[in-house]
């Protein structure tokens, strides 16, 4: 555990050394800010004519997760592929660190970075709370953030896992992006034609467990299990890829 933390800490600090992390932060926080302003503006407009409900904070989180589909591969593409390219993997693999600890440390480091961004986005519901009487529904906000953390955890674990397979960071990036794109948009598409057996595909879809579930305040075990399983799968793929590297 201690080694995972040591590696995660280095990884986290390292994000602030690279312009990429700032680009990702910018590419997330700017659209979120604009979207938030729009939500308030439209609600205020509607309220003037007596219509529309109170503005909600959860669409912001939906956008956050949606943007992560495209941006998280950039955060994880270098995680292990760059260590392999630079040769520093040899350093890690001859240090008294288990292969799993290395992979989990990389994942946790990326997690901490995204959690820092998520922490910044907390200003949106807090500001919104000032405009709404009596107050916004904090339970839904909480559920939405839980969902966000779980989705991000799965995305980053899969990204780190894929980055362990490649030595080239761009190969890792496009493979990860392709996988997320497929899991988010495409896997559920044939479901409506397949009727009952299509349910399996619906279950595998990344978006279903968040958009129409935790993000609107429904927490159920199946959704949590889904994201945790993907996280475990990602870390397992990463660990196995590192072990295979040793034997090659």
């Amino acid at each position, binding site marked *: 555990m*201690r080694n995972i933390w040591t590696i995660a800490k280095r990884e986290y600090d*390292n994000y602030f*050394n690279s312009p990429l992390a700032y680009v990702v932060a910018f590419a997330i926080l700017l659209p979120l800010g604009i979207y938030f302003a729009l939500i308030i503006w439209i609600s205020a407009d509607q309220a003037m004519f007596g219509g529309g409900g109170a503005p909600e904070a959860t669409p912001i989180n939906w956008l956050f997760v949606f943007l992560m589909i495209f941006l998280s591969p950039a955060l994880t593409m270098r995680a292990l592929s760059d260590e392999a390219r*630079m040769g520093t993997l*040899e*350093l890690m693999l*001859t240090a*008294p660190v288990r292969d799993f600890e290395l992979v989990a440390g990389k994942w946790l480091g990326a997690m901490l970075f995204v959690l820092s961004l998520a922490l910044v986005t907390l200003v949106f519901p807090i500001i919104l709370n000032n405009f709404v009487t009596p107050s916004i529904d904090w339970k839904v906000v909480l559920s939405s953030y839980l969902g966000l953390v779980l989705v991000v955890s799965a995305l980053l674990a899969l990204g780190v896992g894929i980055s362990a397979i490649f030595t080239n960071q761009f190969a890792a990036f496009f493979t990860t992006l392709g996988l997320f794109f497929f899991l988010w948009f495409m896997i559920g598409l044939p479901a409506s034609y397949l009727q009952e057996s299509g349910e399996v595909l619906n279950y595998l879809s990344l978006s279903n467990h968040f958009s129409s579930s935790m993000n609107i305040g429904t927490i159920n075990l199946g959704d949590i299990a889904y994201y945790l399983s993907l996280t475990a799968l990602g870390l397992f793929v990463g660990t196995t890829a590192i072990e295979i590297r040793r034997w090659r």
Partner: protein
Amino acid sequence: MIKVSGLTKDYGARRAIQNLNFDAQQGEIVGFLGPNGAGKTTTMRILTGYMPPTDGEAIVAGYDVVEESLEVRKRVGYLPETVPLYTDMVVFDYLKFMGDLRHIPDVDDRVDEVLDMVGLIDRANGYIGNLSKGMRQRVGLAQALLHRPEVLILDEPTIGLDPGQVVEVRELIREIGKERTVLLSTHVLHEAQNICDRVLIINKGKIVAEDTTENLQARLIGAERVIVRVRGEADELADTIKQVKGVRGVETKEDGAVEFEFASGKDLRPEVAKQVIKSGYDLLELRPLGMSLEEIFLELTGSETKKK
């Protein structure tokens, strides 16, 4: 401290090392000599737990490198050939990070101590990416020394250093080697001679010679080899030369020339010349063959670039 038996490693169809057997005791500096691609780095990577061998076993610091890899890695300091470093990190932070992974208590003090040992204390707050090759080499060495390892494995530790630093680093290794086990690879023969107690010469994945530096020196450069040529038939030339005291390794070549050697320091050429002339031969040539350490090394390793 290091015990290797029957170690073999295949990369696909290519056999990198084949049935290596050697050991190294505590307080011993063992040099690993060989041309590029001989299997030095492969062997070191197996000993440091980086990759498992195809066959055979290696015990380092009392633990098996495959079965108890983590225990081995805790006790080994390793400087890889390419000196991989996180170039976007500050020297101090990097060493602290490596120290944290090894759970070193009071890691800050220890990092300062090690930086002082390798003479980099004034660069502690500089980025590794801005350091020269020699300085990076020393950062790598500092990393290998951090946890006071029982066994130190150094792959080409003095490559890229300027002459002054080479002397310093050799001094440092010699100092460390008094209490610990050091295995270092090099292709600078002079270096092996200079700091190693024992030398293993490896070629094409096999050990071709193993001896203490003194013996190897005696065997390799301790003897000077001379070729003698006379006019006409020289059937008994060899016997004639053998009569001179101190001459050894007398050998008659196909073309009738005779080669012999004598311990260096005591030149027997005048005596041999007198003896040859006294026996009625017309001496045509008496020429030292000048087997340098380099040439013998090339001989042993059977390199194609061997001088004529």
